[in-house]
């Protein structure tokens, strides 16, 4: 079973390489798989721009995303719990949130630069905006979807409001919170490339690397860079899911 899963992508790659070799697909439009692999090697050894190696780009991007995402989670989870628990607070905050939510994070870039300048804070801010909504919404839904009978059961065990919040709402909402967190990191990581277009002060970042590869006309490095971003995104998701299954043993 497992082998068949890789059959289709393998065939596609071979066909692609074939078409590229005879230039049916011109390499300046879409480099061949071989060229992309060589481009990846250049990213590792030579760097784009030269001297800026891939692993440093990765570290800086990961750091930016981690920062933006951490702030998003630290704000959205407690707020979501509160909003799920108190209809009053939900009614108060929801209109404002629903107004801001449709604005794509990228539209915030000019404002982000005005407020935070160019550098890690503005990039982290854009990523924060991307991750915040899904985490908040899923947390709220997690609380609201808790069977009310569980809250009543807790009350019959003499639980006070604080107990209900900590011992029922919070653990009950955890599966949804994880869903929100996975979606949030996915969007956050996706927003990374655009966020780094705000101007990267340090000269490192995967988005910046791709932009530079475009500047110096290396589509093979552009695609190799995109692949790196995709793979890292995948690894992050796998990691989160592993944490999730370790934490939520009860489902």
């Amino acid at each position: 079973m497992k082998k068949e899963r890789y059959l289709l992508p393998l065939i596609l790659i071979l066909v692609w390489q074939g078409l590229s070799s005879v230039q049916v697909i011109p390499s300046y439009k879409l480099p061949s798989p071989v060229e992309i692999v060589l481009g990846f090697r250049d990213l590792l050894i030579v760097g784009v721009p030269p001297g800026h190696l891939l692993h440093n780009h990765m570290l800086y991007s990961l750091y930016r995303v981690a920062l933006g995402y951490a702030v998003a989670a630290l704000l959205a989870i407690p707020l979501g719990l509160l909003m799920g628990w108190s209809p009053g607070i939900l009614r108060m905050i929801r209109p404002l949130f629903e107004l801001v939510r449709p604005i794509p994070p990228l539209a915030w870039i000019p404002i982000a630069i005005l407020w935070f300048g160019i550098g890690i804070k503005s990039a982290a801010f854009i990523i924060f905006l991307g991750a915040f909504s899904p985490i908040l919404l899923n947390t709220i839904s997690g609380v609201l979807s808790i069977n009310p009978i569980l809250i009543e059961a807790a009350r019959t065990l003499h639980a006070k409001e604080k107990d209900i919040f900590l011992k029922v709402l919070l653990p009950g909402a955890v599966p949804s919170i994880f869903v929100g967190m996975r979606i949030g990191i996915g969007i956050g990581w996706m927003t990374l490339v655009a966020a780094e277009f705000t101007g990267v002060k340090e000269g490192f970042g995967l988005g910046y690397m791709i932009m530079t590869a475009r500047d110096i006309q290396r589509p093979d490095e552009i695609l190799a860079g995109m692949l790196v971003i995709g793979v890292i995104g995948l690894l992050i998701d796998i990691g989160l899911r592993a944490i999730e299954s370790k934490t939520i043993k009860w489902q």
Partner: protein
Amino acid sequence: MKKIILFFWVNLLFFVAIAQGQPVRIAYLQSDIHHLPFWVAIEKGFFEKEGVRVEVAGIFKAGPEMMSAFAAGSLDMGFVGNAPTITALANRTVRAALLAQVNTEGSAIVVKKDGRLQTLPELVGKGVAIPGHSTVQDFLLRKAFIKHNIQADQVKVIVLKPPEMIGALRTDQIDAFIAWEPHSAKAQTMGVGRVVAHSRDIWKDHPCCGLVADTGFLETHPEKLKAIVRSHVMATDFIHRHREEAIKIAIKYTGMDEGTIRLAMENVHYTYIPSVDGIREYVEFLTKLKYIKVEDTTTFLDRLMRTEILREIIRR
């Protein structure tokens, strides 16, 4: 009978229109005063006089972006820096050629007006913005480093679009920037910046922007190409002879004020004669920086420069 005559005329007009052909798709860089000859040619109707229709197919924020458009086949010709052209051609992402020069010089390194930086060597440890990697400005900056014994890794180089540079300088996001005119002039007239080096101080008479064409277009529409190059030559002469009117056109196309434009144009030298030595130096430098790898500099230059059309026009 009447019907046949009508039919005949309609078809004739139709074919005339087709024969006129598609307009030539030309691009330039946003608010780049180096590209004034193009704007002059449009305003003074030189293209019409030469019998060719022109369409502004793109206004780009920096050279590398324009080269991407060439690669995608969206442009026939463009006004763009020599450095991005060389990079794109060397990396074989475009099939293009340099037909004529557009200007030499015309950039400057700008620092904060009331800042502490007085000289170039003080840039060590500071942040400097460039419009993009492998642009003319990127190249000039590194040349300036070499001249003043600064190691490239001692300065933080940041990529920003020129319109963003003045704001970044003002808020101390960066300590200096290098950009094409009129951005350096604007920083001065706004009272934000001060020039610490003009590009001519770094490298006298250095080539800057060129008139570039897609080689496919060159081969299929040589007549139209010649017409464009002729218009370009006329426009360049016009700037020299009718400076005041040229200034007005520059103001219109950049949207900047007269003081800025006058100051900017003092820093730019408009010429259509390319300098092979200067361009060769670009190629060698880009190779050294590992941005490109060329088969052999001379062969490459032959591939790049197609100045025979220009020579033909000048001879007449």
